[in-house]
Protein backbone atom coordinates (compact mmCIF):
# COMPACT_ATOMS: atom_id res chain seq x y z
CA UNK A 1 0.00 0.00 0.00
CA UNK A 2 1.08 3.55 -0.70
CA UNK A 3 2.18 5.62 2.25
CA UNK A 4 -0.19 8.57 2.85
CA UNK A 5 2.68 10.49 4.42
CA UNK A 6 4.18 10.84 0.91
CA UNK A 7 1.17 12.88 -0.12
CA UNK A 8 1.40 15.90 2.15
CA UNK A 9 -0.24 19.08 0.87
CA UNK A 10 2.28 21.59 -0.58
CA UNK A 11 3.62 24.05 1.99
CA UNK A 12 2.82 27.11 -0.17
CA UNK A 13 -0.75 26.82 1.10
CA UNK A 14 0.42 28.50 4.30
CA UNK A 15 1.21 31.70 2.40
CA UNK A 16 -2.17 31.65 0.67
CA UNK A 17 -3.87 31.32 4.04
CA UNK A 18 -2.24 34.48 5.32
CA UNK A 19 -3.34 36.42 2.23
CA UNK A 20 -6.89 35.06 2.50
CA UNK A 21 -7.15 35.96 6.17
CA UNK A 22 -5.73 39.43 5.57
CA UNK A 23 -8.13 40.26 2.73
CA UNK A 24 -11.05 38.69 4.58
CA UNK A 25 -10.18 40.56 7.78
CA UNK A 26 -10.04 43.98 6.08
CA UNK A 27 -13.34 43.29 4.29
CA UNK A 28 -14.85 42.15 7.58
CA UNK A 29 -13.91 45.45 9.20
CA UNK A 30 -15.56 47.29 6.31
CA UNK A 31 -18.74 45.24 6.75
CA UNK A 32 -18.68 45.95 10.48
CA UNK A 33 -18.54 49.69 9.75
CA UNK A 34 -21.35 49.23 7.23
CA UNK A 35 -23.40 47.34 9.80
CA UNK A 36 -23.13 50.29 12.16
CA UNK A 37 -24.74 52.62 9.61
CA UNK A 38 -27.13 50.22 7.90
CA UNK A 39 -27.64 46.99 9.83
CA UNK A 40 -30.27 45.55 7.53
CA UNK A 41 -28.17 45.96 4.38
CA UNK A 42 -25.16 44.49 6.15
CA UNK A 43 -27.15 41.40 7.14
CA UNK A 44 -28.56 40.98 3.64
CA UNK A 45 -25.09 41.28 2.10
CA UNK A 46 -23.75 38.91 4.73
CA UNK A 47 -26.45 36.43 3.74
CA UNK A 48 -25.31 36.75 0.13
CA UNK A 49 -21.74 35.90 1.06
CA UNK A 50 -22.88 33.22 3.48
CA UNK A 51 -25.02 31.39 0.95
CA UNK A 52 -22.34 31.59 -1.74
CA UNK A 53 -19.44 30.33 0.39
CA UNK A 54 -21.62 28.14 2.56
CA UNK A 55 -22.66 26.52 -0.70
CA UNK A 56 -19.08 25.29 -1.05
CA UNK A 57 -19.20 23.81 2.46
CA UNK A 58 -22.62 22.15 2.12
CA UNK A 59 -21.96 21.31 -1.53
CA UNK A 60 -18.68 19.63 -0.56
CA UNK A 61 -20.61 17.41 1.82
CA UNK A 62 -23.02 16.46 -0.96
CA UNK A 63 -20.23 15.77 -3.47
CA UNK A 64 -18.34 13.77 -0.84
CA UNK A 65 -21.30 11.43 -0.46
CA UNK A 66 -21.92 11.40 -4.20
CA UNK A 67 -18.42 10.18 -4.98
CA UNK A 68 -18.71 7.44 -2.34
CA UNK A 69 -21.93 6.35 -4.03
CA UNK A 70 -20.76 6.40 -7.65
CA UNK A 71 -17.09 5.54 -7.24
CA UNK A 72 -14.74 6.56 -10.02
CA UNK A 73 -11.31 8.14 -10.36
CA UNK A 74 -12.60 11.73 -10.15
CA UNK A 75 -14.00 10.95 -6.71
CA UNK A 76 -10.69 9.60 -5.45
CA UNK A 77 -8.70 12.67 -6.55
CA UNK A 78 -11.15 15.23 -5.12
CA UNK A 79 -12.13 13.32 -1.97
CA UNK A 80 -9.68 15.03 0.40
CA UNK A 81 -10.54 18.45 -1.04
CA UNK A 82 -14.27 18.06 -0.51
CA UNK A 83 -13.57 16.54 2.91
CA UNK A 84 -11.67 19.69 3.82
CA UNK A 85 -14.55 21.73 2.38
CA UNK A 86 -17.07 19.87 4.54
CA UNK A 87 -14.90 20.45 7.63
CA UNK A 88 -15.54 24.19 7.28
CA UNK A 89 -18.94 23.47 8.86
CA UNK A 90 -17.93 24.79 12.33
CA UNK A 91 -16.97 28.06 10.64
CA UNK A 92 -20.33 28.18 8.88
CA UNK A 93 -22.00 27.89 12.30
CA UNK A 94 -19.95 30.84 13.59
CA UNK A 95 -20.65 32.90 10.48
CA UNK A 96 -24.34 32.14 10.90
CA UNK A 97 -24.51 34.14 14.15
CA UNK A 98 -25.08 37.53 12.43
CA UNK A 99 -28.03 36.03 10.54
CA UNK A 100 -29.51 34.49 13.69
CA UNK A 101 -29.11 37.80 15.51
CA UNK A 102 -30.66 39.60 12.52
CA UNK A 103 -33.73 37.39 12.75
CA UNK A 104 -33.88 37.52 16.54
CA UNK A 105 -33.80 41.33 16.62
CA UNK A 106 -35.97 41.65 13.52
CA UNK A 107 -33.31 43.45 11.51
CA UNK A 108 -33.80 41.33 8.41
CA UNK A 109 -36.50 39.08 6.90
CA UNK A 110 -39.84 40.77 6.31
CA UNK A 111 -41.78 37.97 8.04
CA UNK A 112 -40.41 38.99 11.43
CA UNK A 113 -42.47 42.17 11.05
CA UNK A 114 -45.68 40.97 9.42
CA UNK A 115 -48.93 41.44 11.36
CA UNK A 116 -50.28 38.14 12.77
CA UNK A 117 -53.35 38.34 10.54
CA UNK A 118 -51.29 38.51 7.34
CA UNK A 119 -52.39 35.50 5.28
CA UNK A 120 -48.86 34.17 5.03
CA UNK A 121 -48.54 34.20 8.82
CA UNK A 122 -51.95 32.81 9.77
CA UNK A 123 -51.29 29.27 8.57
CA UNK A 124 -47.64 29.11 9.50
CA UNK A 125 -48.22 29.91 13.15
CA UNK A 126 -45.40 28.87 15.44
CA UNK A 127 -43.34 27.66 12.49
CA UNK A 128 -42.56 31.23 11.50
CA UNK A 129 -41.30 32.52 14.81
CA UNK A 130 -37.78 33.77 15.37
CA UNK A 131 -36.88 31.23 18.05
CA UNK A 132 -38.18 28.28 16.06
CA UNK A 133 -36.38 29.52 12.94
CA UNK A 134 -33.11 29.63 14.87
CA UNK A 135 -33.80 26.25 16.48
CA UNK A 136 -34.40 24.70 13.07
CA UNK A 137 -31.11 26.08 11.75
CA UNK A 138 -29.39 24.53 14.76
CA UNK A 139 -30.97 21.18 13.83
CA UNK A 140 -29.74 21.50 10.24
CA UNK A 141 -26.23 22.18 11.46
CA UNK A 142 -26.44 19.24 13.84
CA UNK A 143 -27.54 16.87 11.05
CA UNK A 144 -24.86 18.17 8.70
CA UNK A 145 -22.41 17.87 11.58
CA UNK A 146 -23.11 14.15 12.08
CA UNK A 147 -22.54 13.50 8.37
CA UNK A 148 -19.35 15.58 8.27
CA UNK A 149 -18.00 13.95 11.42
CA UNK A 150 -18.57 10.35 10.35
CA UNK A 151 -17.36 10.73 6.77
CA UNK A 152 -14.20 12.54 7.86
CA UNK A 153 -13.57 10.03 10.62
CA UNK A 154 -13.69 7.17 8.13
CA UNK A 155 -11.40 9.10 5.79
CA UNK A 156 -8.86 9.39 8.59
CA UNK A 157 -9.28 5.71 9.55
CA UNK A 158 -8.55 4.75 5.97
CA UNK A 159 -5.30 6.71 5.99
CA UNK A 160 -4.25 4.76 9.08
CA UNK A 161 -5.46 1.40 7.77
CA UNK A 162 -2.75 -1.26 7.79
CA UNK A 163 -4.13 -3.68 5.22
CA UNK A 164 -6.05 -3.50 1.97
CA UNK A 165 -8.93 -5.47 3.50
CA UNK A 166 -9.30 -2.97 6.32
CA UNK A 167 -9.24 -0.06 3.91
CA UNK A 168 -11.80 -1.74 1.66
CA UNK A 169 -14.07 -2.32 4.63
CA UNK A 170 -13.95 1.37 5.53
CA UNK A 171 -14.73 2.35 1.94
CA UNK A 172 -17.72 0.02 1.92
CA UNK A 173 -18.98 1.45 5.19
CA UNK A 174 -18.74 5.01 3.83
CA UNK A 175 -20.53 3.99 0.62
CA UNK A 176 -23.35 2.26 2.49
CA UNK A 177 -23.74 5.29 4.74
CA UNK A 178 -23.84 7.71 1.81
CA UNK A 179 -26.83 6.17 0.04
CA UNK A 180 -29.64 6.78 2.54
CA UNK A 181 -27.87 9.84 3.97
CA UNK A 182 -27.95 11.50 0.56
CA UNK A 183 -31.76 11.53 0.81
CA UNK A 184 -31.61 13.09 4.26
CA UNK A 185 -29.04 15.58 2.94
CA UNK A 186 -31.33 16.72 0.11
CA UNK A 187 -34.20 17.13 2.60
CA UNK A 188 -32.07 19.11 5.06
CA UNK A 189 -30.83 21.37 2.26
CA UNK A 190 -34.42 21.91 1.13
CA UNK A 191 -35.60 22.89 4.60
CA UNK A 192 -32.52 25.03 5.18
CA UNK A 193 -32.76 27.10 2.01
CA UNK A 194 -36.49 27.52 2.44
CA UNK A 195 -35.81 29.00 5.86
CA UNK A 196 -32.74 31.03 4.97
CA UNK A 197 -33.73 32.31 1.52
CA UNK A 198 -37.29 31.60 0.46
CA UNK A 199 -38.73 33.23 3.57
CA UNK A 200 -37.05 36.48 2.49
CA UNK A 201 -40.18 36.82 0.38
CA UNK A 202 -42.80 35.41 2.77
CA UNK A 203 -45.65 35.54 0.28
CA UNK A 204 -43.94 33.45 -2.37
CA UNK A 205 -43.23 29.76 -2.59
CA UNK A 206 -41.65 27.28 -4.96
CA UNK A 207 -41.45 23.52 -4.52
CA UNK A 208 -38.27 23.07 -6.59
CA UNK A 209 -36.39 25.56 -4.42
CA UNK A 210 -34.38 22.97 -2.50
CA UNK A 211 -33.26 21.11 -5.61
CA UNK A 212 -32.09 24.39 -7.15
CA UNK A 213 -29.58 24.62 -4.33
CA UNK A 214 -28.65 20.94 -4.26
CA UNK A 215 -27.69 21.31 -7.95
CA UNK A 216 -26.29 24.83 -7.68
CA UNK A 217 -24.10 24.04 -4.69
CA UNK A 218 -22.90 20.86 -6.38
CA UNK A 219 -21.92 22.93 -9.41
CA UNK A 220 -20.13 25.48 -7.22
CA UNK A 221 -18.22 22.68 -5.51
CA UNK A 222 -17.03 21.10 -8.74
CA UNK A 223 -15.94 24.49 -10.10
CA UNK A 224 -14.06 25.21 -6.89
CA UNK A 225 -12.43 21.75 -6.86
CA UNK A 226 -11.21 22.23 -10.43
CA UNK A 227 -9.53 25.49 -9.43
CA UNK A 228 -7.88 23.81 -6.44
CA UNK A 229 -6.78 20.84 -8.56
CA UNK A 230 -5.37 23.08 -11.30
CA UNK A 231 -3.31 24.86 -8.65
CA UNK A 232 -2.15 21.60 -7.06
CA UNK A 233 -1.27 20.10 -10.43
CA UNK A 234 1.84 22.28 -10.78
CA UNK A 235 3.15 21.18 -7.40
CA UNK A 236 4.40 18.06 -5.73
CA UNK A 237 2.86 15.61 -4.83
CA UNK A 238 -0.25 16.10 -6.98
CA UNK A 239 1.72 16.55 -10.23
CA UNK A 240 2.39 12.81 -10.04
CA UNK A 241 -1.27 12.02 -9.41
CA UNK A 242 -3.39 14.23 -11.64
CA UNK A 243 -3.87 13.68 -15.35
CA UNK A 244 -5.91 15.11 -18.20
CA UNK A 245 -8.58 12.51 -17.77
CA UNK A 246 -9.39 13.62 -14.22
CA UNK A 247 -10.07 17.12 -15.45
CA UNK A 248 -12.05 15.76 -18.35
CA UNK A 249 -14.30 13.82 -15.96
CA UNK A 250 -14.90 16.74 -13.63
CA UNK A 251 -15.47 18.96 -16.68
CA UNK A 252 -18.24 16.61 -17.77
CA UNK A 253 -19.83 16.85 -14.33
CA UNK A 254 -19.63 20.65 -14.54
CA UNK A 255 -21.38 20.51 -17.92
CA UNK A 256 -24.07 18.23 -16.54
CA UNK A 257 -24.71 20.40 -13.49
CA UNK A 258 -24.75 23.59 -15.57
CA UNK A 259 -27.57 21.99 -17.52
CA UNK A 260 -29.32 20.76 -14.38
CA UNK A 261 -29.17 24.27 -12.93
CA UNK A 262 -30.76 25.68 -16.10
CA UNK A 263 -33.30 22.87 -16.21
CA UNK A 264 -34.49 23.39 -12.63
CA UNK A 265 -34.62 27.16 -12.99
CA UNK A 266 -36.54 26.97 -16.22
CA UNK A 267 -38.93 24.39 -14.72
CA UNK A 268 -39.66 26.79 -11.89
CA UNK A 269 -40.25 29.63 -14.34
CA UNK A 270 -42.37 27.60 -16.77
CA UNK A 271 -44.68 26.24 -14.08
CA UNK A 272 -45.23 29.65 -12.56
CA UNK A 273 -45.63 31.26 -16.00
CA UNK A 274 -48.16 28.59 -17.05
CA UNK A 275 -50.12 28.74 -13.81
CA UNK A 276 -50.20 32.55 -13.95
CA UNK A 277 -51.36 32.86 -10.34
CA UNK A 278 -50.86 36.24 -8.66
CA UNK A 279 -49.24 34.87 -5.48
CA UNK A 280 -46.52 33.20 -7.52
CA UNK A 281 -45.90 35.50 -10.49
CA UNK A 282 -44.93 38.50 -8.37
CA UNK A 283 -41.54 36.99 -7.66
CA UNK A 284 -40.67 36.85 -11.36
CA UNK A 285 -42.43 40.11 -12.28
CA UNK A 286 -40.13 42.00 -9.90
CA UNK A 287 -37.13 40.25 -11.39
CA UNK A 288 -38.17 41.03 -14.97
CA UNK A 289 -38.22 44.78 -14.41
CA UNK A 290 -35.48 47.41 -14.51
CA UNK A 291 -31.97 46.41 -13.53
CA UNK A 292 -33.08 42.96 -12.34
CA UNK A 293 -34.11 42.08 -15.91
CA UNK A 294 -30.57 42.63 -17.16
CA UNK A 295 -29.20 40.40 -14.41
CA UNK A 296 -31.76 37.75 -15.34
CA UNK A 297 -30.72 37.85 -19.00
CA UNK A 298 -27.05 37.83 -17.98
CA UNK A 299 -27.74 34.70 -15.91
CA UNK A 300 -29.31 32.89 -18.87
CA UNK A 301 -26.42 33.84 -21.14
CA UNK A 302 -23.46 33.53 -18.80
CA UNK A 303 -24.60 31.04 -16.17
CA UNK A 304 -25.94 28.69 -18.81
CA UNK A 305 -25.42 29.32 -22.56
CA UNK A 306 -21.81 30.48 -22.53
CA UNK A 307 -20.32 27.88 -20.12
CA UNK A 308 -22.53 25.21 -21.66
CA UNK A 309 -21.18 25.80 -25.17
CA UNK A 310 -17.60 26.01 -23.92
CA UNK A 311 -17.87 22.84 -21.85
CA UNK A 312 -19.20 20.88 -24.82
CA UNK A 313 -15.69 21.02 -26.27
CA UNK A 314 -13.61 18.00 -25.36
CA UNK A 315 -10.14 19.58 -25.60
CA UNK A 316 -11.19 22.40 -23.34
CA UNK A 317 -12.19 20.05 -20.54
CA UNK A 318 -8.80 18.35 -20.71
CA UNK A 319 -6.74 21.48 -20.08
CA UNK A 320 -6.48 22.12 -16.37
CA UNK A 321 -5.89 25.88 -16.53
CA UNK A 322 -8.64 26.55 -19.07
CA UNK A 323 -11.15 24.42 -17.20
CA UNK A 324 -10.21 26.18 -13.96
CA UNK A 325 -10.85 29.59 -15.55
CA UNK A 326 -14.27 28.42 -16.73
CA UNK A 327 -14.84 27.17 -13.19
CA UNK A 328 -13.94 30.60 -11.83
CA UNK A 329 -16.30 32.25 -14.29
CA UNK A 330 -19.18 29.96 -13.31
CA UNK A 331 -18.44 30.59 -9.62
CA UNK A 332 -18.74 34.33 -10.23
CA UNK A 333 -22.08 33.75 -11.98
CA UNK A 334 -23.19 31.64 -9.02
CA UNK A 335 -22.63 34.72 -6.85
CA UNK A 336 -24.63 36.84 -9.31
CA UNK A 337 -27.36 34.20 -9.21
CA UNK A 338 -27.49 34.40 -5.40
CA UNK A 339 -27.69 38.19 -5.66
CA UNK A 340 -30.58 37.80 -8.11
CA UNK A 341 -32.39 35.59 -5.58
CA UNK A 342 -31.75 37.76 -2.54
CA UNK A 343 -31.54 41.32 -3.89
CA UNK A 344 -35.14 42.07 -4.92
CA UNK A 345 -36.80 40.61 -1.80
CA UNK A 346 -38.75 43.02 0.40
CA UNK A 347 -36.91 44.89 3.13
CA UNK A 348 -37.80 45.34 6.77
CA UNK A 349 -37.29 49.11 6.84
CA UNK A 350 -40.08 50.32 4.54
CA UNK A 351 -38.64 53.80 4.24
CA UNK A 352 -35.39 52.55 2.83
CA UNK A 353 -36.33 51.30 -0.60
CA UNK A 354 -39.39 50.95 -2.73
CA UNK A 355 -40.35 47.27 -2.89
CA UNK A 356 -38.36 45.47 -5.59
CA UNK A 357 -36.39 48.54 -6.65
CA UNK A 358 -33.03 47.80 -8.22
CA UNK A 359 -30.28 48.44 -5.74
CA UNK A 360 -26.73 47.21 -5.31
CA UNK A 361 -24.98 48.17 -2.11
CA UNK A 362 -21.21 48.40 -1.77
CA UNK A 363 -21.59 45.82 0.97
CA UNK A 364 -22.86 43.29 -1.60
CA UNK A 365 -19.30 43.28 -2.93
CA UNK A 366 -17.45 43.50 0.38
CA UNK A 367 -19.42 40.97 2.43
CA UNK A 368 -18.78 38.04 0.05
CA UNK A 369 -15.07 38.96 0.13
CA UNK A 370 -15.14 39.03 3.93
CA UNK A 371 -16.88 35.65 4.23
CA UNK A 372 -14.74 34.25 1.40
CA UNK A 373 -11.42 35.31 2.88
CA UNK A 374 -12.22 33.77 6.22
CA UNK A 375 -13.69 30.68 4.60
CA UNK A 376 -10.64 30.12 2.40
CA UNK A 377 -8.33 30.61 5.38
CA UNK A 378 -10.23 27.92 7.28
CA UNK A 379 -10.57 25.64 4.25
CA UNK A 380 -6.85 25.77 3.38
CA UNK A 381 -6.00 25.06 7.00
CA UNK A 382 -8.19 21.96 6.89
CA UNK A 383 -6.67 20.97 3.55
CA UNK A 384 -3.16 21.03 5.04
CA UNK A 385 -4.09 18.87 8.00
CA UNK A 386 -4.36 15.62 6.08
CA UNK A 387 -2.71 13.91 3.11
CA UNK A 388 -4.02 15.46 -0.08
CA UNK A 389 -5.19 12.16 -1.60
CA UNK A 390 -6.61 8.96 -0.05
CA UNK A 391 -3.43 6.99 -0.82
CA UNK A 392 -4.67 3.93 1.07
CA UNK A 393 -7.90 3.70 -0.89
CA UNK A 394 -8.08 0.30 -2.64
CA UNK A 395 -8.76 2.11 -5.92
CA UNK A 396 -6.05 4.74 -5.55
CA UNK A 397 -3.52 3.27 -8.01
CA UNK A 398 -6.28 2.61 -10.50
CA UNK A 399 -7.50 6.18 -10.18
CA UNK A 400 -4.01 7.59 -10.79
CA UNK A 401 -3.57 5.37 -13.83
CA UNK A 402 -6.95 6.44 -15.17
CA UNK A 403 -5.81 10.04 -15.26
CA UNK A 404 -2.84 9.29 -17.45
CA UNK A 405 -4.97 7.45 -20.04
CA UNK A 406 -6.37 8.87 -23.24
Amino acid sequence: MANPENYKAPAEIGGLRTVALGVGGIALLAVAVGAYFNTEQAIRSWLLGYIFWGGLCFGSLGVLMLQYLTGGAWGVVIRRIVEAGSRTLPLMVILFIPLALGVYFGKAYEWTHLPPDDYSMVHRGAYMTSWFWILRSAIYFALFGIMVYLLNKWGRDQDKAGTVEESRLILERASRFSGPTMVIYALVVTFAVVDWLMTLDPHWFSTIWGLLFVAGWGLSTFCFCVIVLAWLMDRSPMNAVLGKKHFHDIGKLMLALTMVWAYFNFSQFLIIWSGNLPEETGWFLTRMKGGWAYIGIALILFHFVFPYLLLLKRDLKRQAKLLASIGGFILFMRLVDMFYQIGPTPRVDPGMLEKGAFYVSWMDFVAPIAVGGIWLWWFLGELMKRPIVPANDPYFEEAVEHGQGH
Partner: protein
Amino acid sequence: MGSKLHGIMAEFDTATELVDAARAVRDAGYTKTDAFSPFPLHEIDEALGIKRSILPYLIFAGGVTGLCAGIGLQVFVHVIEWPIIVGGRPHFSLPAFVPPAYELTILFAAFVAVFGMLFMNGLPSPYHPVFNVPRFALATREKFFLLIEAKDEKYDYSETRKFMEGLNAQEVFDVDE
Protein backbone atom coordinates in the same frame (compact mmCIF):
# COMPACT_ATOMS: atom_id res chain seq x y z
CA MET B 1 -11.16 -13.92 -57.46
CA GLY B 2 -8.05 -14.52 -55.45
CA SER B 3 -5.97 -12.37 -57.75
CA LYS B 4 -7.24 -9.14 -56.22
CA LEU B 5 -6.22 -8.45 -52.64
CA HIS B 6 -8.01 -6.41 -49.99
CA GLY B 7 -4.77 -5.91 -48.13
CA ILE B 8 -2.14 -7.52 -45.99
CA MET B 9 -2.69 -8.54 -42.38
CA ALA B 10 -0.29 -9.36 -39.59
CA GLU B 11 -1.03 -11.32 -36.44
CA PHE B 12 0.42 -10.49 -33.00
CA ASP B 13 0.40 -12.20 -29.64
CA THR B 14 0.18 -9.20 -27.35
CA ALA B 15 -1.38 -5.76 -27.31
CA THR B 16 2.02 -4.12 -26.79
CA GLU B 17 3.37 -5.74 -29.96
CA LEU B 18 0.33 -4.55 -31.87
CA VAL B 19 0.71 -0.98 -30.65
CA ASP B 20 4.44 -0.96 -31.44
CA ALA B 21 3.77 -2.35 -34.90
CA ALA B 22 0.99 0.21 -35.43
CA ARG B 23 3.43 3.00 -34.60
CA ALA B 24 5.94 1.61 -37.11
CA VAL B 25 3.22 1.41 -39.78
CA ARG B 26 2.14 4.97 -39.10
CA ASP B 27 5.74 6.22 -39.17
CA ALA B 28 6.26 4.42 -42.49
CA GLY B 29 3.50 6.64 -43.88
CA TYR B 30 0.61 4.21 -44.30
CA THR B 31 -2.82 5.74 -43.71
CA LYS B 32 -5.39 3.16 -44.88
CA THR B 33 -4.80 0.92 -41.91
CA ASP B 34 -6.83 -0.78 -39.20
CA ALA B 35 -6.16 -2.67 -36.00
CA PHE B 36 -8.23 -5.43 -34.39
CA SER B 37 -8.13 -6.42 -30.76
CA PRO B 38 -10.31 -8.49 -28.41
CA PHE B 39 -10.65 -5.50 -26.07
CA PRO B 40 -10.48 -1.70 -26.45
CA LEU B 41 -6.94 -0.33 -26.69
CA HIS B 42 -6.87 3.35 -25.84
CA GLU B 43 -3.40 3.94 -27.28
CA ILE B 44 -4.27 2.58 -30.70
CA ASP B 45 -5.87 5.79 -32.03
CA GLU B 46 -2.69 7.68 -31.40
CA ALA B 47 -0.44 4.78 -32.50
CA LEU B 48 -2.16 4.43 -35.88
CA GLY B 49 -2.45 8.19 -36.30
CA ILE B 50 -6.25 7.99 -36.56
CA LYS B 51 -7.70 11.49 -36.69
CA ARG B 52 -10.44 12.57 -34.30
CA SER B 53 -13.88 11.90 -35.75
CA ILE B 54 -15.89 14.87 -37.03
CA LEU B 55 -19.00 13.20 -35.62
CA PRO B 56 -19.25 15.49 -32.54
CA TYR B 57 -19.52 18.53 -34.82
CA LEU B 58 -22.19 16.82 -36.89
CA ILE B 59 -24.11 15.99 -33.69
CA PHE B 60 -23.89 19.62 -32.62
CA ALA B 61 -25.19 20.70 -36.02
CA GLY B 62 -27.97 18.13 -35.65
CA GLY B 63 -28.88 19.59 -32.26
CA VAL B 64 -28.98 23.14 -33.61
CA THR B 65 -31.13 21.95 -36.53
CA GLY B 66 -33.50 20.27 -34.07
CA LEU B 67 -33.72 23.43 -31.98
CA CYS B 68 -34.53 25.55 -35.03
CA ALA B 69 -36.99 22.94 -36.32
CA GLY B 70 -38.75 22.86 -32.94
CA ILE B 71 -39.08 26.62 -32.67
CA GLY B 72 -39.94 26.89 -36.38
CA LEU B 73 -42.64 24.25 -36.20
CA GLN B 74 -44.34 25.90 -33.25
CA VAL B 75 -44.07 29.39 -34.68
CA PHE B 76 -45.55 28.15 -37.93
CA VAL B 77 -48.44 26.35 -36.24
CA HIS B 78 -49.25 28.75 -33.41
CA VAL B 79 -48.44 32.10 -35.00
CA ILE B 80 -48.79 31.78 -38.77
CA GLU B 81 -50.96 28.89 -39.86
CA TRP B 82 -53.57 28.43 -37.12
CA PRO B 83 -53.33 31.07 -34.40
CA ILE B 84 -55.64 30.37 -31.49
CA ILE B 85 -55.51 31.89 -28.05
CA VAL B 86 -54.43 29.44 -25.34
CA GLY B 87 -54.75 30.49 -21.72
CA GLY B 88 -54.79 34.16 -22.65
CA ARG B 89 -51.18 34.05 -23.80
CA PRO B 90 -49.75 35.75 -26.86
CA HIS B 91 -49.52 33.58 -29.97
CA PHE B 92 -45.77 33.76 -29.77
CA SER B 93 -45.05 32.46 -26.25
CA LEU B 94 -41.43 31.43 -26.09
CA PRO B 95 -41.53 29.79 -22.61
CA ALA B 96 -44.18 27.34 -23.82
CA PHE B 97 -42.13 26.60 -26.95
CA VAL B 98 -39.01 25.65 -25.03
CA PRO B 99 -39.88 22.08 -23.92
CA PRO B 100 -40.81 20.76 -27.41
CA ALA B 101 -37.87 22.60 -28.98
CA TYR B 102 -35.60 21.09 -26.35
CA GLU B 103 -36.94 17.59 -27.04
CA LEU B 104 -36.41 18.01 -30.78
CA THR B 105 -32.85 19.21 -30.11
CA ILE B 106 -32.14 15.97 -28.25
CA LEU B 107 -33.96 13.86 -30.85
CA PHE B 108 -32.08 15.29 -33.84
CA ALA B 109 -28.73 15.16 -32.05
CA ALA B 110 -29.38 11.53 -31.05
CA PHE B 111 -30.39 10.60 -34.60
CA VAL B 112 -27.24 12.15 -36.03
CA ALA B 113 -25.17 10.44 -33.34
CA VAL B 114 -26.56 6.95 -33.97
CA PHE B 115 -27.02 7.01 -37.75
CA GLY B 116 -23.93 9.15 -38.33
CA MET B 117 -21.87 6.66 -36.35
CA LEU B 118 -23.27 3.74 -38.35
CA PHE B 119 -22.78 5.53 -41.67
CA MET B 120 -19.25 6.66 -40.95
CA ASN B 121 -18.27 3.17 -39.85
CA GLY B 122 -19.75 1.76 -43.05
CA LEU B 123 -22.31 -0.24 -41.09
CA PRO B 124 -24.24 -2.42 -41.53
CA SER B 125 -21.69 -4.41 -43.46
CA PRO B 126 -22.86 -7.95 -44.26
CA TYR B 127 -19.58 -8.88 -45.95
CA HIS B 128 -16.08 -7.91 -45.02
CA PRO B 129 -12.92 -9.30 -46.65
CA VAL B 130 -10.94 -9.59 -43.39
CA PHE B 131 -12.97 -12.69 -42.50
CA ASN B 132 -11.37 -14.45 -45.47
CA VAL B 133 -8.39 -15.02 -43.22
CA PRO B 134 -9.44 -18.05 -41.13
CA ARG B 135 -7.29 -17.13 -38.14
CA PHE B 136 -8.95 -13.71 -37.98
CA ALA B 137 -11.72 -15.28 -35.87
CA LEU B 138 -9.19 -15.23 -33.03
CA ALA B 139 -9.41 -11.42 -33.00
CA THR B 140 -12.43 -11.81 -30.71
CA ARG B 141 -10.52 -14.07 -28.35
CA GLU B 142 -6.79 -13.74 -27.84
CA LYS B 143 -4.95 -12.46 -30.93
CA PHE B 144 -4.24 -8.99 -32.24
CA PHE B 145 -4.29 -8.08 -35.93
CA LEU B 146 -3.03 -5.19 -37.99
CA LEU B 147 -4.19 -4.52 -41.56
CA ILE B 148 -2.83 -2.37 -44.38
CA GLU B 149 -5.38 -1.98 -47.16
CA ALA B 150 -4.45 -2.33 -50.80
CA LYS B 151 -5.97 1.07 -51.61
CA ASP B 152 -3.32 2.80 -49.50
CA GLU B 153 -1.25 5.15 -51.65
CA LYS B 154 2.01 3.70 -50.39
CA TYR B 155 0.84 0.12 -50.93
CA ASP B 156 3.01 -2.10 -53.06
CA TYR B 157 2.44 -5.84 -52.67
CA SER B 158 5.96 -7.17 -52.28
CA GLU B 159 7.34 -4.15 -50.46
CA THR B 160 4.44 -3.88 -48.03
CA ARG B 161 4.50 -7.59 -47.38
CA LYS B 162 8.20 -7.48 -46.62
CA PHE B 163 7.65 -4.51 -44.33
CA MET B 164 4.88 -6.34 -42.45
CA GLU B 165 7.07 -9.41 -42.05
CA GLY B 166 9.73 -7.24 -40.44
CA LEU B 167 7.27 -6.08 -37.76
CA ASN B 168 7.87 -8.91 -35.34
CA ALA B 169 4.56 -10.49 -36.35
CA GLN B 170 3.55 -14.10 -35.66
CA GLU B 171 2.36 -14.52 -39.19
CA VAL B 172 1.49 -12.36 -42.21
CA PHE B 173 -1.55 -13.10 -44.39
CA ASP B 174 -2.79 -11.93 -47.76
CA VAL B 175 -6.40 -10.85 -47.39
CA ASP B 176 -8.50 -11.80 -50.43
CA GLU B 177 -11.03 -9.29 -51.68
